[in-house]
C-alpha cells in the first residue's frame, strides 16, 4: 500500500524528525517503492505460526545485584549539549508562572 503525504507527515512527527515539504514528498515516493516490496508478506500463510521476537529462547535473565563503579557525574555529562552544574540543561517545558 502507499502512504499519503499526510500519513508520511504524521509518522515523521511521531518519529520527531522535522522535514521540509520537499523531503516529505521524496520520502513518500521512496516508501511507495519499498512498501510495494514489503507488501509481498501478505502472500504468506501465517495461520498458526508463532512470532519470533528474538532468535534465542531466552527469558527473564537475572543476575546478582553487585555494586560496580558508577559512571560518575563528569563522565555522564561529558557529552551533554548543555549543562548547568551537575545537571543536564534542558529547555523550559512548563510555561513560566504556570502551576502545572
Amino acid at each position, binding site marked *: 500500500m502507499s502512504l499519503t503525504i499526510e500519513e508520511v507527515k504524521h*509518522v515523521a512527527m511521531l518519529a*520527531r524528525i522535522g522535514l521540509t515539504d520537499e523531503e516529505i514528498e521524496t520520502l513518500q515516493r521512496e516508501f511507495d517503492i519499498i512498501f510495494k516490496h514489503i507488501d509481498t508478506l501478505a502472500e504468506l500463510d501465517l495461520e498458526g505460526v508463532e*512470532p*519470533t521476537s528474538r*532468535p534465542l529462547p531466552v527469558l527473564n535473565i537475572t543476575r546478582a545485584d553487585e555494586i560496580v563503579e558508577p559512571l560518575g557525574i563528569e563522565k*555522564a555529562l*561529558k*557529552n551533554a*549539549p548543555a549543562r548547568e552544574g551537575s545537571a543536564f540543561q534542558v*529547555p523550559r517545558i512548563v510555561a513560566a508562572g504556570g502551576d502545572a
Partner: protein
Amino acid sequence: MNPVLNGDMTARECVDATYTEIDAHNKEINAFVELTPDLAYAAADEIDARIKAGQKDELGPLAGVPVGFKDNMNLIGSKMTCCSNFLKDFESVYTATAVQRLIDAGTLPIGKTNMDEFAFGSSTETSVFGPTKNPWNLERVPGGSSGGSAAAVAARMVPIALGSDTGGSIRQPGAFTGTVALKPTYSRVSRFGVTGVSSSLDQVGSFATTVKDTALTLNAISGHDRFDTMSAKRDSEDFTAKLDSSVKGLRVAVVKDYLEADGLDPEIKASILAGVAALETQGAQIGEVSLPHSEYAISTYYIIMTAEASSNLARLDGIRYGARAQDTKDVVDLYLRTRAEGFGPETRRRLIMGTYMLSAGHYDKYFDRALRARTLVKQDFEKAFADYDIIVAPTTATTAFEFGAKQDPLTMYLSDRFTVPVNLAGVAALSMPSGLSQEGLPLSIQLISNYYDEATLLQTAAALERSYDFTELPSHVAETTA
C-alpha cells in the same frame, strides 16, 4: 606470522609501520576516520616491556597485532561518531566489552573505521565522513555498513578489524574486499558499548586476512558479559582447535534456491561450485537444501530492523549527549530540528519507516506478521541443520558495485538478500574470498553453521582456504610488498 612475537620488530616499530602505511593510503581509501596513536603506542610499550622482561611466553598469539574498530564501538580515548553528524563530537566514556577483550589480548588499537551512518547502508556511502573506497578498485564501494573495517584489512593497513553485522554488514563488505568476515552466532559476542541498532539482529564480528586470525579473534572477544544479558553463558572454546582437521564425513549442503537465483553473477556461482567440489574431494558429503522463505526475508528484515532501530535511536534526542539544535522555540521543536539536522537521509528514512511499523493500526499488519514470517525463515535453517553441518551459499549476487549505482533504497536493500536470512535466524556465518573476477574484483562464498558451531564453520573455512589458495592483493599493496 606475528612479527612482534617473532622478534622481527618491536611493537612500537609495528605501530610506526602501521601509521606509515595508513598515512600513505588512507587519504585515498578513507578506511579510518580517527587514529588513536596515544592508545596504540601505550599498548605497544607495554608489550615491548613484557618481551624485554622475558615474559614473552605469557603473551597470547594476538599480542602486538594492530587492530581497527568500527566507529560504532566505544573506546575510551577516542570519539565514537557512528559516522553521523549527530555524534560527531561524542567522546567515549567507557569501552565496549568486545573492544576491551581484543585489547586485553595484547592487540594495538590503531583507530576507528568508517561505516554507513549508524550502520544503515550497504556501501559506506552514507557516512558523514564520505565513502570508503574499495582497495581493489577505487571506483567501487567496499560494501557496508562495516566498509571501513573491511577496506582497512583488505588494504593491509591492519590484519584484523572488528565490525558489526545486523543484516550482512560484516559479510557483504567482506565479500566485496576479499577478506575473511565472520558474523558469529547471535549472542556469542557481547554488544555492550556497541551502538545498538536492531537488538534482536545485531552481532559483533571480525574481518581478517586468514581463517586462523578470525578464530583467534573469536577466542578473544566471545563469552558472556554481565552488561549484555543476551550474551551466551557457554564454556570458553578454542576456535583454532579444528582448523587443521579433515572435513571427511562433514555434511555440507548447497542452498539450491540461492545458487539458481536470478542475477547471481556466473563467476561467483562457478567459484562456489569449485569450492564445494574441493570439499567433496576432501571427503565431505555434499547435498542440497532449500530455504524457501528467504524470498520474504528482505521484507521481514526491513520491518523488524527499522522498527527496532526507531525504538533504539529514540534516545538520540539532543538532551543528554550529541548534537542539539539551537534557538528552538519549545521542546518538541528541539526534538524535531535536532533529529532532522543530526540524521542523514537514510537514517531518517529508516527511523520514520520503523515508527510507522510500530504505530497504531499498522503493528498487526506489518510488525506482527514480520515476527511470524521470521519464524518460518528460522525453521528453514533448523530443517537444513537437522541433516547438514554446513550450508554453502553466495554472500552477494554481484562483486563490488560502483559508487552511486544503487540510487533507490530498495535496490540497495535487495543487495543483502543472501545475508539477511542468517541474521533473522541468528545462526553463524562467514564470508571468504573464492577467487578473483575477470575484472579483478574479489569473488566470495558464504558458509553458514548451526547455532554456536563456529568451530565447524571455521574448520570448513580453513579447508576451503587451502583449496582456493587466494593470495592476490589489491594492486597498491602488491606493489609495496613485491
